[in-house]
């Protein structure tokens, strides 16, 4: 693979910010860049297994179009030519979209998600569709019907989930940046476990049209990237009102990159005491504490804050999300698309189709959600959970009177071994304890890598949470910290690319 001029580093190793400069100056073509990534995929994906579907022709065609436009003196857009990977829960017209499920094994959407359309309009060639926990239900990508994705830092460990493929692709150099979805932490947690940046936007900021729905009041698409600056650029393309989504916010979209370098002088940072306690792995707590100290050095006013409702967050989430999911997944019935297993009558056909098409975790959540909504139980479970959600939102509001951003580890642990937590669903659910509250509040949060844990050498992620629609502040704080922390090591699989 050709090296980039003036550097021994292959294109696939560079950040989007670096690549944009090279593309604009003509030192690198979009086609060369895309080629570099496709070759990287071929080289490592048999080990990492980040991708379900790779789309080389489509990607190269888009790249070629970008190159042609530039050659003709047109401006194809600031980010044009920087390839992206897309989580396979996002509909892409004409391209197989499975949501990680057997029930959509042969499904080809007749339309594209708004997010996918915006990426394409911005000139980002799509490399392929990445692996995920089935219907975004999981925290390890082990629930994919196809195969588990492996953490590029240690192929015997999980990349996190549900957007494990998107996170691993960026961590392994198989994509410059990627799109995932976050319902209870499914962008932030895998970002943390894979040592990359992952952002969950405010609910309603990014269109949900084309996101195969898991929990409608929680789902959001967001960026994975190698740096905070890159994440800000990708968010810029994705954000903004969509007439196809009634819950999409009409607020004007700010320039997410404009204030990255403003620093954190005087920024009030609240460390959430509930999330720094016993359940947190020692090395994780250590790295997070070091980062907190750095923030103080940079001029932030760091304090502690207690949000008692956070203790119930997981339980609230695991009542609300499955309830909404049980209705969202009812459409998979073998009638209009997807898998069909025959039956003597429609009800039997539906039941057998869903029994064969859905994996165990999905079935479990459908059952849980159906139960929580059923006659006699609604008030006690779903109804009660929605009220508890209000309490969590009020808790946040109170905290944000005294603080501008809140801080916690993203995940209580580093990446665990494949198969380690699959015996007991409850154990897996607890991975989400730090991320779920922000989802319930519909607010925004980012995970950035803050070193590796001394005991296992695996990435530690730090979460910065912000008020709804305050991505600018969250990004500014994250960027300042990222700069101060210095470069993260690369996973061993990165190798020492000299070519």
């Amino acid at each position, binding site marked *: 693979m050709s090296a980039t001029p003036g550097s021994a580093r292959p294109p696939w190793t560079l950040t989007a910010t670096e690549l944009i400069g090279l593309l604009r100056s003509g030192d690198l073509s979009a086609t060369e860049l895309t080629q570099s990534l496709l070759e990287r995929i071929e080289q490592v994906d048999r080990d990492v297994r980040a991708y379900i579907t790779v789309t080389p022709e489509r990607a190269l065609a888009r790249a070629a179009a970008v190159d042609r436009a530039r050659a003709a003196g047109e401006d194809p857009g600031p980010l044009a030519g920087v390839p992206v990977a897309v989580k396979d829960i*996002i*509909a892409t017209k004409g391209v197989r*979209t499975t*949501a990680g499920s057997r029930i*959509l094994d042969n*499904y080809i*959407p*007749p*339309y594209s*998600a708004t997010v996918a359309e915006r990426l394409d309009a911005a000139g980002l060639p799509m490399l392929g569709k990445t692996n995920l926990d089935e219907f975004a239900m999981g925290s390890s990508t082990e629930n994919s019907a196809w195969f588990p994705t492996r953490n590029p830092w240690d192929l015997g460990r999980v990349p996190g989930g549900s957007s494990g493929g998107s996170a691993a692709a960026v961590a392994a150099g198989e994509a410059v940046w990627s799109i995932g979805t976050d319902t209870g932490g499914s962008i932030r947690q895998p970002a943390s476990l894979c040592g990359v940046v992952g952002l969950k936007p405010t609910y309603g900021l990014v269109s*949900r*049209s*084309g*996101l*195969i*729905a898991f*929990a*409608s*009041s929680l789902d959001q698409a967001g960026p994975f990237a190698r740096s905070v600056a890159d994440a800000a650029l990708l968010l810029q393309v994705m954000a903004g009102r969509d*007439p*196809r*989504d*009634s*819950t999409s916010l009409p607020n004007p979209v700010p320039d997410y990159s404009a204030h990255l370098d403003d620093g954190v002088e005087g920024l009030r940072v609240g460390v959430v005491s509930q999330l720094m306690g016993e359940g947190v792995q020692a090395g994780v707590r250590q790295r997070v504490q070091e980062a907190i100290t750095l923030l103080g050095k940079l001029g932030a006013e760091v304090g502690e804050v207690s949000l008692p409702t956070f203790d119930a967050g997981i339980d609230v989430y695991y009542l609300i999300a499955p*309830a*909404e999911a*049980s*209705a969202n997944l*009812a*459409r*998979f*019935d073998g*009638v*209009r*698309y997807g898998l069909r297993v025959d039956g003597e009558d*429609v*009800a039997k056909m*539906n039941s057998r189709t869903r029994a064969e098409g859905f994996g165990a975790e999905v079935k479990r959540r459908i059952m849980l959600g*159906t139960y929580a*909504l*059923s*006659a006699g139980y*609604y008030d006690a479970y*779903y109804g009660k959970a929605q009220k508890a959600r209000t309490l969590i939102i009020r808790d946040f509001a109170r905290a944000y009177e005294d603080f501008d951003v809140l801080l916690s580890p993203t995940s209580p642990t580093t990446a665990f071994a494949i198969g380690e937590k699959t015996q007991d669903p409850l154990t897996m659910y607890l991975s989400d304890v730090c991320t779920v509250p922000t989802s319930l509040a519909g607010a925004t949060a980012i995970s950035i890598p803050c070193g590796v844990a001394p005991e296992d050498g695996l990435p530690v992620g730090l979460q910065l949470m912000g008020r709804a629609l305050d991505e600018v502040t969250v990004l500014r704080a994250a960027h300042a910290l990222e700069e101060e922390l210095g470069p993260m090591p690369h996973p061993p699989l990165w190798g020492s690319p000299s070519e």
Partner: protein
Amino acid sequence: MSDAAPELLTTIGLEIHCELATATKMFCGCAVGFGGEPNTRVCQVCLGHPGTLPVPNERAVAYAIKIALALGCRIAPSSIFHRKNYFYPDMPKNYQISQYDIPLGLAGSLDVTTGAGTRAIGITRVHLEEDTGKSLHMGSGGRIHDADYSLEDFNRAGTPLVEIVTEPDMTSPDEGRTFAQELRSILEYLEVSDVRLEEGSMRFDANISVAPPGERGAKVEVKNLNSLRSLHRALAYEEVRQREVLAGGGTIDQSTRHWDEKSGVTRPLRTKEHAFDYRYFPEPDLVPIKPSPEWLEGITAGIPELPPARRRRFIADYGLTPYDAALLVATRAAGTFFEDAVAGAGNVEPKLVANWLANDLLGRLAERSEDLATTKVTPQNLGALVGLVAAGSISGNQGKVVLDEMIATGRPAAEIVDERGLRQVSGRSELEAVVGEVLAANADVVERIRAGDTKPQGFLVGQIMRATKGQANPAVVQELLRDLLQR
């Protein structure tokens, strides 16, 4: 049913579904329509593809509010959609987006007048929802029972529906049918639906129970009522059936029955619908509807004079009988046409205009598959025609001939009359000569009449009409005959 036990009371409630006459579906941009090739008015949203989201049709919401206001409902300051969850192959998402405990409109009422008097029927609620697709049952002559398999067409899926639920305030099949008729009229006036029962754009389900006064009978739901006639027949049948069961010492279970129009009976419906737990919860993909005062005012201003008020006004201002008023108020077009025709008729009794419109014009138009919207006859033209007849310028028979030409050509009455020389001859002196001639030519008939046999008088009149080419004024002819025969 007149000997039914007098101590049992009938209680009826209706549930009406009305397809709105919007251009597009409730939650997507597909066209609304009837008929056509299957699955040609569909998109990823109304097919329930994964990842799709609903966006409400603004006009559909306005129409629903209009209906609620017309029925005297209170409009909810903030109403939301709910998901109603159940599996059925005509349901693209296996949940229907509907409304549950916070509907658009609540607590209205509509008066119904039957032979038994006028009563106010409560409207419990008016809400918005989306329609399902259509199933075609194969291998059983179209019936769902014994079908081998079914075919699904989603053209109708997603069509905006307004559901209107009444209080169980009706007490007879007559009241039920009259209510349904009145409601249909109102919906037609509001121009929110084409209310074609035969096409399914207005559908009824009825609930009926029979019990001693003060007690609550078990509610029986009756489905498959595709016309006002079916509604009446089914309710009448069910009333008798329930009374007979109770009289025989049996009990009625809360159940659902299917009306079979051909055999004229209701049958139990064997699907387990009553076992459904719909698990309603607020629709997370949609935001609340909070109608502003300005929006409500605008919608209210667009509500025309409705049938009840128009009927009262026609009776009071035009002296019409309740029967005639009801006829002319049945459609909005008929009443408007009538008023314009009265204005164009000059100094003529409105009753005459009413008769010509209801008896003569409408019938002829129906024969030609036309209606008041498509006819070439203007209200002013009709009025002028009636004026001519009332003034005696032409006879009633001549008027009908003129009307035929008016319908065919749209030309004004006076023009046709003049062209054909149809002016009625009413002068006594002109007619005396002709009458005299006819009498002279039929002396034997005259003898018989003078002898007391009045029957052949008609023959003489006919002869006189022939001799005058139908232009003799019949009233004057009668007078002359009476005079001349007496001599």
